[in-house]
């Protein structure tokens, strides 16, 4: 969207309050959704719950194609469709709900920097592990991604997606990395997050912000997803304050929902396989 169109949209957004029937779309939870999409979706759900905005989660096999930017999740609010955490945060801010108003400029700079760190390292590592590691791609990602479709579409779509992700990895320079280096990057990222969090309940004082939602989404999904090897979740588990952080947010914001949205047994680790 051009800048003028964005400004126009946020003006329209500001005009109406948040409706009751806002819906969040994501791929099918049991069969289709992959680690990275699940993490992004959980981050958005956590953010909306932190803002006290009601949203219903609807699972569709073609959610990725319905989305205006090609990425899930996206929310359908009133007569507007917004995808990805960044634009959704701006959209809710235009409607008057914001979690980061109390931060000063330097803190806001830090928050944005840490959100980029999570996107740059954790999300890219998740995509790498899913699509560039041959084992995981063959056993988990391709079958899951194409499960709603019949032959030959399932093969075509799965390989197309894999090719697309590998192209992106080559462009940003991750194609030359091996799995060990990727796990090492994840570990460094978690170490940075753990040091920033320290002993505080949330990243910025006592109030959660969008950074907390994003970190929760990724870490919780990593911890509760079973992949071909446990090494990724082991890397996260080695930082106890991050574990406590995830547990705290799960208890504060997700306890009330039943099997509907996301409350999974934390230690039982239901798999996405």
């Amino acid at each position, binding site marked *: 969207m051009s800048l003028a169109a964005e400004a126009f949209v946020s003006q329209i957004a500001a005009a109406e309050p948040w409706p009751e029937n806002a819906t969040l779309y994501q791929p099918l939870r049991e069969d289709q959704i992959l680690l990275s999409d699940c993490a992004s979706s959980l981050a958005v759900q956590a953010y909306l719950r932190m803002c006290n905005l009601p949203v219903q989660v609807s699972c569709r096999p073609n959610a990725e194609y319905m989305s205006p930017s090609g990425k899930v999740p996206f929310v359908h609010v009133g007569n507007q469709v917004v995808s990805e955490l960044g634009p959704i945060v701006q959209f809710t801010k235009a409607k008057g709900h914001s979690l980061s108003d109390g931060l000063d400029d330097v803190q806001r700079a830090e928050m944005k*920097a*840490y959100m980029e760190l999570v996107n740059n390292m954790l999300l890219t590592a998740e995509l790498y592990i899913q699509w560039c590691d041959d084992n995981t791609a063959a056993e988990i990602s391709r079958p899951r991604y194409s499960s709603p479709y019949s032959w030959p579409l399932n093969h075509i779509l799965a390989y197309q997606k894999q090719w697309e992700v590998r192209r992106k990895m080559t462009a940003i320079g991750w194609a030359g990395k091996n799995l060990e280096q990727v796990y090492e990057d994840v570990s460094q990222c978690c170490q940075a997050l753990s040091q920033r969090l320290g002993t505080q309940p949330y990243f910025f004082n006592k109030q959660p912000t969008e950074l907390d939602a994003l970190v929760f989404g990724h870490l919780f999904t990593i911890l509760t997803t079973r992949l071909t090897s446990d090494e990724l979740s082991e890397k996260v588990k080695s930082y106890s304050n991050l574990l406590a952080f995830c547990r705290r947010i799960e208890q504060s914001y997700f306890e009330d929902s039943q099997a509907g949205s996301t409350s999974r047994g934390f230690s039982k680790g239901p798999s996405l396989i």
Partner: protein
Amino acid sequence: MTATNMAASMELRCWGADWGLPSVHTESLIVLAYAKFSGADLTVAPIDWTWRTLTATVPELICQESRVTEPAQILNFLRKLRFNADYELSARQGADTMAYIALLEEKLRPALLHTFWVDTENYASLTRPWFASRSPFPLNFLVPCRHANTALSRILLTKSESPLHTITDVEGKIYSEAKECLNLLSHRLGAAYYFFGNTPCSLDAFVFGFIAPLHKASLPSSPLQNHLRQLENLQRFCDHILSAHFSSHPGSPQPVQEMVDANLQKLTQLVNKESNLIEKMDDNLRSSPQHKPLRSDPRPNSSDHRNSTPA
């Protein structure tokens, strides 16, 4: 690490110098700046006019038998050799460093790539001639094209929302994100000389590497450069690092010297002004004894009285 390791010669292959910078290439600048900050002694071997412009991945550090590429890897390698500029950072500052580097990569790099390699005016008048003139025949036809194609595909793959979008759809978004990133850096830097305390560290090297080409290159059309011109503290940051670490006069730490000189200058000016006032009061007292000495009689004198009127 033994002393022989530390004294081993290390060679850095990078793009050459121009525009007042030790190198025009962002990654090479990052490594050069970090080497200066940490005291590592590198022999700089520019790849200009060699066939390595096509074959080598730049920057590349060669130390005895090991070859390391990519700024992050090279910095790690230097740290293992005890050239560590981040020694005094706390754990939290180290975490902040990683976060800000990620911010630079995600938000600023696409716009910089676009400014130098995709924007037709800049590419045709500045970037391509420079890189073509530094590559041997017949590579001068290949090298700039290849870099430009890589830059364009990187921007489109990471920033565009659908495979059908063209570069123009993405331009607005990447430039607004880059301007926001520059504002955030400016807020974080504030009035300090470096990002963390009084000594430079790896974050300073990264920010310098990204911003210095934008600051120094004479780009014909660049909204991003105009935006940078409004952020004085970032410009001062670049200039200070250039003068303190890359100038041809080595010597005493300059920031302290500069501040002391500035303070001394201000003090001298103040003392001069005071003495001039006292002089005038004396003259008034002598010239017209019946009047109170409060009436000032301004005269042009040697000090810097800007608003003095002739007596």
